[in-house]
């Protein structure tokens, strides 16, 4: 079941949470709404669910307009950020809730709940109370409860927000596999880009109630649509400078920039991801920035090197592969050259 959101706006008092936003979620997709807090992603999710009513615009499930439909009639599965399990009910009763209010027969309820307990791998815990479960187990119960009624769409609000790093990692992969198994159209909200990129097959980046970019994780990572996306994705070095006559002069890097050939110079910002910078001991004729190694921090898969280019007052973060690092034998305090392998230049709109 696909979801279509058309021109939806929502205001909370003075605050414009969603601004004429439109979005298409293809049937069977697992889509992440990614953005900083206050970007409107949770509001959008709640409007899709019917927990919040938009001021204007429409929401469609497939071709059915559900704009005015109440939550309980929309048949959505909603997983709340803090699980919202019924504290006085056992795991079994929690999962059975949606079936009981639909007056399923006792035998069918039992069968369906056991099916779900198997799915979430919590067989044997059906008589426990939520307070006796770990965070990860609770999250899975919340998911099973939402899935019990075979919802048309599954909506998850920061599903892993309240869990510690290791459990988070496991649950992400588990959710990914689960989605491959059941293929229900799913939307989840997160502010963690790693999570969005790892779990979702489509990512929507939101900011100030609008969509900045939507696409596959690869599309967004390879072709960020604008400076916001680039900056939000993080792990980037930012250089400010100007473009003119097909060249860009950006904080020490003087590179070709054929996209802008005007005589008149314009302000521009360049983004270079940490792993797109290389370090060399000698200048080899390509644009390079002289910098001092300040700090070396060996991380799991890369070595994070922090440098300072005194001449331009620029700090640089470079991620080197271990192999390259071992080759270079870097020491703190050394003077080296930093070269960009790839730069993304965004020319600012002309402003007076």
């Amino acid at each position, binding site marked *: 079941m696909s979801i279509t959101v058309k021109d939806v706006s929502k205001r909370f008092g003075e605050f414009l949470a969603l601004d004429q936003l439109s979005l298409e979620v293809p049937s069977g997709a697992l889509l992440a709404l990614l953005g900083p807090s206050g970007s409107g992603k949770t509001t959008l999710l709640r409007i899709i669910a019917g927990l919040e009513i938009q001021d204007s615009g429409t929401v469609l499930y497939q071709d059915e307009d559900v704009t005015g439909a109440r*939550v*309980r009639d929309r048949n959505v599965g909603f997983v709340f950020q803090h699980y*919202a*399990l019924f504290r006085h009910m056992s795991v079994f009763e929690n999962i059975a*809730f949606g079936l009981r*209010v*639909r007056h399923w027969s006792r035998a069918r309820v039992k069968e369906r709940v056991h099916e779900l307990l198997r799915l979430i791998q919590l067989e044997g815990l059906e008589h426990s109370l939520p*307070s006796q479960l770990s*965070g990860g187990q609770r999250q899975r119960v919340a998911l099973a409860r939402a899935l019990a009624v075979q919802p048309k769409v599954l909506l998850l609000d920061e599903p892993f927000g309240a869990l510690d790093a290791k459990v988070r990692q496991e649950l992400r992969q588990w959710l990914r596999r689960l989605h491959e198994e059941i293929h229900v159209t799913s939307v989840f909200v997160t502010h963690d880009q790693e999570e969005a990129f790892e779990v979702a097959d489509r990512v929507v980046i939101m900011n100030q109630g609008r969509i900045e970019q939507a696409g596959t994780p690869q599309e967004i990572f390879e072709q960020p649509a604008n400076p916001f996306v680039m900056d939000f994705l993080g792990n980037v070095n930012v250089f400010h400078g100007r473009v003119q006559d097909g060249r860009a002069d950006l904080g020490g890097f003087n590179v070709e920039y054929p996209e802008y050939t005007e005589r008149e110079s314009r302000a521009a910002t360049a983004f270079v991801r940490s792993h797109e910078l290389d370090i060399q001991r000698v200048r080899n004729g390509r644009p390079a920035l002289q910098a001092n190694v300040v700090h070396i921090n060996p991380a799991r898969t890369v070595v994070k090197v922090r440098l300072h280019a005194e001449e331009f007052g620029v700090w640089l973060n470079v991620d080197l592969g271990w192999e390259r690092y071992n080759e270079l034998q870097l020491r703190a305090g050394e003077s080296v050259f930093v070269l960009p392998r790839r730069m993304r230049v965004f020319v600012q709109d002309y402003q007076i």
Partner: protein
Amino acid sequence: MRIALVAFTILVMGVLIVIPLVNVFYQALAGGGGVYWRNLVADADTRHSIYLTLIVAPLAVAANVVFGVAAAWAIARFRFPGRTLLTAFIDLPFAVSPVVVGLFLVLIFGLQGFLGPWLRAHDIKVIFAIPGLVLATAFVTFPVVARELIPVMEAIGADEEVAAVSLGARGWQMFSRVTLPNIKWGLLYGIILCNARAMGEFGAVAVVSGRISGQTDTMPLRVEKLFQEYNMPGAFAVASVLASLAVVTLLVKTGLEWKTRSDLAAAARETARGKT
């Protein structure tokens, strides 16, 4: 300093509460168990007063449970214009003298009152009748249930209710399956407290009842009447029933208070854990 404060408190409690309470039972039972029993059941008017209290108090409590849950829900779950005012108004009956409450009711429902002609035309009796007693009692005990429930509902939060609705529950299903089980101890506590206040209500009831023996006298009114008639054993016998009720209420209340407090603490822990 500490010893002095404790001693002072115990002294005041003893003189003002414990000694009178013990004295009530002592006086009531002074003539022996048989006399005590006869004092309670032999007099038709006394019997009727007990019966009337057993009718009026539960009705008033029932009315306040409905109102209390509705008001607590509105205040704990919604933000609406006038919410603060409503919260303040709930406490009004505690602030106003019960006698004034009784007069209010007479002014509205009495024969010369605002609704008097209409009530007379439809042959409905409120003042000097059971409806008046129930109204007066309910009005005076009006804040008890709501006051108990508001903090409980606020501590528990709306998440589970929203979850229930998202799972397809109708309003009543949500209330009976999710809200009620979560607030049951607080509600029970409110009911016990409300019942104790309702049974003991004197001032407002005295005004609206007209104090007709064998017809509109509740237990507290009966105690006073017997006392005025110098029937000390009779007065103390009825008073002892009211006092026993108070002691039972106190015990149940302490038990429930302990239970609700641990529930509230658990709810707070739960919330804290969920948010970290």
